[in-house]
C-alpha cells in the first residue's frame, strides 16, 4: 500500500498546503486503499490492483480547481476610467476655452481641439458599456 500513499503524496505536491487539502488527501488515500483491498478481494494481484487504482484516479487538476485559492477577480475599472476621462477632458477643454478667450477673443477656435479631446471619454464610455 506504500505505492498508493506515495502516489497520492506526489499528486498533491503542487497544491498549496491547507487544512482542507490535508482532509481531502486523507479521504482519498483511505478510499483508494479500500479500492485496492476490494480489487484484491476480487482476485487481483496486489500489484495489478494498485496499478489499476492509480491509472483510474484521473486528473488531479479537477480537485486542484475546486481547492484552488479563488483567483482574485480583476476589479472592474471601466467605471473609474470613464469618470477619469470625463474629468480629464473637461479640464483640458476648459484650458482651451480659457486660452481662446483670454488671448484671441475674436476668433473662436477652441471647438476644434474639443472635438479631438472628446474621443477620449467617448472610447471610455464605449468600454464601460461593453463590459
Amino acid at each position, binding site marked *: 500500500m506504500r505505492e498508493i500513499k506515495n502516489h497520492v503524496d506526489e499528486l498533491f505536491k503542487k497544491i498549496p498546503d491547507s487544512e482542507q487539502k490535508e482532509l*481531502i488527501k486523507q*479521504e482519498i488515500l*483511505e*478510499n483508494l486503499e*479500500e*479500492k485496492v483491498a476490494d480489487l484484491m478481494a476480487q482476485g487481483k494481484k496486489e500489484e495489478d490492483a494498485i496499478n489499476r487504482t492509480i491509472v483510474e484516479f*484521473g486528473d488531479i487538476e*479537477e*480537485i486542484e480547481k475546486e481547492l484552488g485559492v479563488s483567483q482574485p477577480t480583476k476589479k472592474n475599472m471601466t467605471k473609474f476610467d470613464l469618470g477619469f476621462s470625463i474629468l480629464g477632458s473637461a479640464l483640458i477643454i476648459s484650458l482651451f476655452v480659457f486660452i481662446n478667450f483670454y488671448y484671441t477673443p475674436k476668433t473662436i477656435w477652441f471647438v476644434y481641439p474639443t472635438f479631438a479631446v472628446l474621443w477620449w471619454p467617448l472610447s471610455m464610455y464605449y468600454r464601460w458599456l461593453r463590459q
Partner: protein
Amino acid sequence: MIRSDIIRGHLDSIILRLILEKDQYGYEISKQISLKTKDRFQIKEATLYAVFQRLEKKELIESYFGNISHGGKRKYYTITTFGKAYLKETVKEWQETKEIIDLFMEGLD
C-alpha cells in the same frame, strides 16, 4: 466506454441522487456508479472528489465522520434540504432536456 462529457454535466445530480438514497462515502459511491451502469460508465476518483468539494461548497451536501474502517475514519456524505430541492429541480430540467433532444434524435438508427 461511453463518451463522458455529456454525463459529466450531470454528475452533480447523479451523485446527489445516490446520496439521497442513503448516506455514503467516496468509494461506495464510485462502486455504485460502476455497478448500476454495469461498468459502462466509471467515475474517476479525481472527478468524484472534485464534485464532493463543489457540492459541499454549494451546501447541497454535508459530511461527517462515521465508523472506523481500514485504520481510519470514513467520511460520509449526506444530502441537505437544499440539496434535495436542487435535485428535484435538476430532475425536472433533465426530463425536459431529454424530451427536446429526443425530438431530434428519435426515429433514426
